[in-house]
């Protein structure tokens, strides 16, 4: 009894403190409940959806720009460089940006993001190789007629060089028009035929012939490399996994908000 009385008198003496404590606890509970009832902020949600859309759109634009370069419909690399840079910046926003801060604890989202980052880095690598190789290939294709002109300029008749050169160029250009790769054996044979004809001719002719052959070898090499790179650069890396992971996170947040609103 004594103990009970002491407790009652203690509570009576400190009633204000206990009331304040209870009020603070209730307020904290209300704040916690309020937070839990909040869905994902609409502005943030829209920004994140915007990033996913931007990635898809940029990837499509990159593919288109690469195809234009591949088919000589575009003649500078500013656009592809800007697009891949923008894709990297978008991923950085998803990784470090304020709008994605709540997602840093989401394992599934982070794992998808890491995968996407790796794939975009791979695409960036492929793009650099494409740019370097495409530049050399296009240069050699443009230069080929001039290399031919330089070689045959001042060449007397009866050497057979002009005919061999024209055969070689025709073979290279027709194969390109047909979209077919050069047959290595046929190419080597045509080059040997030219070199046989120029062996006994003056140094300037031999040098012209070597230049032409070097350009043809470059064309041959890079026409083999480029299709794979173009394929890689025009395929989709953003398979929707990241957006789906976000959607699942978003749905969970919304469900939780609805559930807690009940309280």
């Amino acid at each position, binding site marked *: 009894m004594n103990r009970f009385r002491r407790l009652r008198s203690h509570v009576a003496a400190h009633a204000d403190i206990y009331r304040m404590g209870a009020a603070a606890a209730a307020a904290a509970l209300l704040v916690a409940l309020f937070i839990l009832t909040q869905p994902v902020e609409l502005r943030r949600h829209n920004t994140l959806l915007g990033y996913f859309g931007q990635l898809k759109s940029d990837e499509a634009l990159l593919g288109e720009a690469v195809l234009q370069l591949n088919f000589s419909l575009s*003649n*500078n690399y500013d656009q592809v*460089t800007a697009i891949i840079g923008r894709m990297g910046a978008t991923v950085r926003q998803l990784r470090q940006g304020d709008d994605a801060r709540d997602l840093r604890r989401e394992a599934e989202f982070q794992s998808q993001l890491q995968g996407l980052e790796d794939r975009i880095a791979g695409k960036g690598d492929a793009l650099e190789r494409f740019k370097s190789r495409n530049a050399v290939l296009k240069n050699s294709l443009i230069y080929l007629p*001039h290399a031919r*002109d330089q070689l045959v300029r001042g060449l007397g008749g009866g050497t057979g060089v002009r005919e061999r050169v024209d055969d070689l160029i025709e073979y290279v250009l027709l194969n390109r028009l047909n979209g077919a790769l050069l047959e290595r054996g046929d190419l080597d044979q045509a080059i040997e035929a030219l070199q046989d004809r120029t062996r006994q001719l003056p140094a300037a002719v031999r040098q012209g012939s070597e230049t032409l052959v*070097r350009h043809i070898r470059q064309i041959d090499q890079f026409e083999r490399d480029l299709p794979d790179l173009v394929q890689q650069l025009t395929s989709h890396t953003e398979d929707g996994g990241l957006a789906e992971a976000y959607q699942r996170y978003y749905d969970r947040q919304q469900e939780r908000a609805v559930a807690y609103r009940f309280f």
Partner: protein
Amino acid sequence: MIYSDWQASRRAPTIPARAEGLVAAEDPIVPIPRSLALDTRKVDLGRRLFGDRRLSADGSVSCATCHNLSTGGVDRRVCSRGIGGREGGINAPTVFNAGFNFRQFWDGRAETLEAQVDGPLQNPAEMGGEWSQAIATISADADYRAAFAAVYPDGITADNVRNAIATFERSLVTPDSRFDRYLRGDAAALSKNELAGYRLFKQIGCTSCHQGMNIGGNMYQKLGIMEDYFVAERARRSEVDQGRFNITKRDEDRHFFKVPSLRNVAVTPPYLHDGSAKTLEDAVSVMARYQLGTELDKADIASIAAFLRTLTGEYEGRRLE
């Protein structure tokens, strides 16, 4: 030019002549913008930092020492000299229009101008500094403290110093070169010889790599595509000759370098990563031989060099010298 003539005759009826006042769609080069929207307070702050020798270990060198704005944004040495007169290993590229480059440094190791700042500041052969020392120096200066507080809520930090310097560097654009005026439709901006040089520049394939807004600076390319430059030209090789390989460690990247911008090239000698080409004519000749597999005669070299001299733009209303 049998094939070329044939090509021209076939193309003539279908390709319209250059329309006056328009940038020709077929040109691989586009003019640089006349102005950029940048925070002028950051630009001014970055300008001060760029010229501040106190950021170096012994207070003798600033960014502007090697990137002198009155000499084309370079120091015109084969290799720059850092603190204590130490010589670097590579030719300093110009800082003008560096903001248009897709990567920084010859080997492209910095993705942004911000990331680039760390390189010279901490390189023992350049400024030899440390961030802690640089921040302490900047923080001790009342003017800097006020300027940073006005622009950056978190005040003086390494990130903010990087950002201020990079913002200033982004402001270093040089519009209105004669060639840009030509691209914008002023047909009289180039002489006949310069125009012939431009045609030749495209015809022999220079624009395969030197294209876009910065006439380069948007891709990597191997030095020595048609002939091994490092066997033929270089008795002494150095680590920097490996180029991008030093970053990626992939064999296929050996001797690959960022294609340099040709804007203002006439005022930024010497040329190439090793500074081995003393004149524009030397550089054109070396490039033609090793990159394009052709030997140009003197007249062609002079013609291309004449075109390259039209690429000099203006900074703060004055043509670069």
